[in-house]
């Protein structure tokens, strides 16, 4: 299953890549692929912008505008004017079942 085409904000700077392969390890959707001592983006549209690759790239070769792909969270962010945030981190207040995320 794939989501919308051509929207993922993932970008990768091949010149900074040392080929350690961490990104291929952490990506839940096999977006990266090893190729000749480095990696390449093999499936950009498979990217769900979770940010695991960028966070684990010691060289800072990857950047992505990561966040929750969750409508309720994004609407929450629009209302509060802040970042998209789901209500499910409230600790047991029971309020959070208005949100379906996570």
């Amino acid at each position: 299953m794939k989501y919308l085409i051509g929207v993922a904000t993932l970008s990768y700077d091949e010149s900074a890549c040392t080929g350690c392969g961490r990104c291929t390890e952490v990506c839940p959707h096999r977006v990266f692929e090893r190729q000749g001592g480095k990696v390449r983006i093999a499936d950009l549209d498979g990217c769900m912008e979770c940010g695991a690759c960028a966070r684990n790239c010691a060289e800072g070769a990857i950047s992505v505008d990561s966040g929750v792909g969750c409508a309720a969270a994004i609407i929450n962010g629009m209302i509060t004017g802040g970042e998209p945030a789901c209500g499910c981190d409230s600790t047991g207040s029971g309020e959070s079942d208005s949100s379906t995320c996570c």
Partner: protein
Amino acid sequence: MEKNKTSKPMTIQIGPAGKGVSGNPSALKFTQLPWADGWVSSDSGPVMRISTKWTRADYFGALRCRTGSLRNNYKVAPGLYAVGSPNSDSDIFVSANYKLSFDYLRRGLDGLNAWVLVLDTKGINVWCAAGKGTFGAAELTRRIKSTGLAGIVGHKRIIVPQLGAVGVSAHDVRNGTGFMVHYGPVLARDIKAFIAARYRASDEMRTVRFPIIDRLALTPMEIRPVMRHFLIFVLSVLVFFGLGREGIIFGRAFSGGGPVVGLAGLAVLSGAFLTPLFLPFVPFRSFALKGLLTGLAATLLGLSVFPEMDAYPRAASLIFFPAASSYIALQFTGSTTFTGMTGVKKELKIGLPLYIASSAVSLILLVLHKTIKWGSL
């Protein structure tokens, strides 16, 4: 390595405020933990041993998480735990303090001798907590230090679930603690295969899928939040249709409002249940379009069942309910394993104005209907 002795199994009682179960057992308060299975000693004091078997209470708890009644208050105390009889060479597996995450991990470790390090993620699962940063390098570093892990094991490997990588930066953990993060498989049930393959997860183990059984398990938590709005909607519809000069007439409320309520039920069903369940088979990639399509089909079907409906409520229903189904289906993006933020934002940017417009138009149609009818009421 004979440094670890195990005591005989017993029922352990600790309090919810337990700061890590490697602390002083006598300081702990009284909550029964059926999954506790005695203590093992370590160089940093006694460590609670946990069972790798699920009891009936664990299955029931898992079910209640899926239906929502326990979902936000199902926690274990953060800290270090033991599985089997671990020694200084045993692997360390990291988890969240959402009990369901913890349960899947301990079940996946059946038959192994290992350490389990539970981070304080405020009772949220690994992937979501990693997204929020509570399952992250800072908490992992803090927890490695507070449990004295470096004194308990003689190696420097720590196995973090792959989905935790969203919050954990392996190089930061190494810089902060000296421990080398190995990302384990996505699912705890693949751990033994992962170890057998010399700590290498296959592509299969590293890929997140979204099979029908997972989608089905998530639908109760799609329907539940909608139901609250649904009840208010039903009441408003019945009052609206029942209202006349003499007050609210029940017969009229049900004859006029009944079909609308039925259509609303179909919209909830199509948006919160059918669309998630048949996700890959419903055309379009956009969740809003998927929900619109299933909602349109459900509404047309519903309208064919209620041929006696007046023209205005019919038109209003045809405009409103597919949009409602679309909106509800869009909420499922929060539960999927493959939708990204930019895509959802794009959908909302186009969708929200249309949802508002369709609500407004259908409301106007209903008011017109009432105004025309008012003379004869």
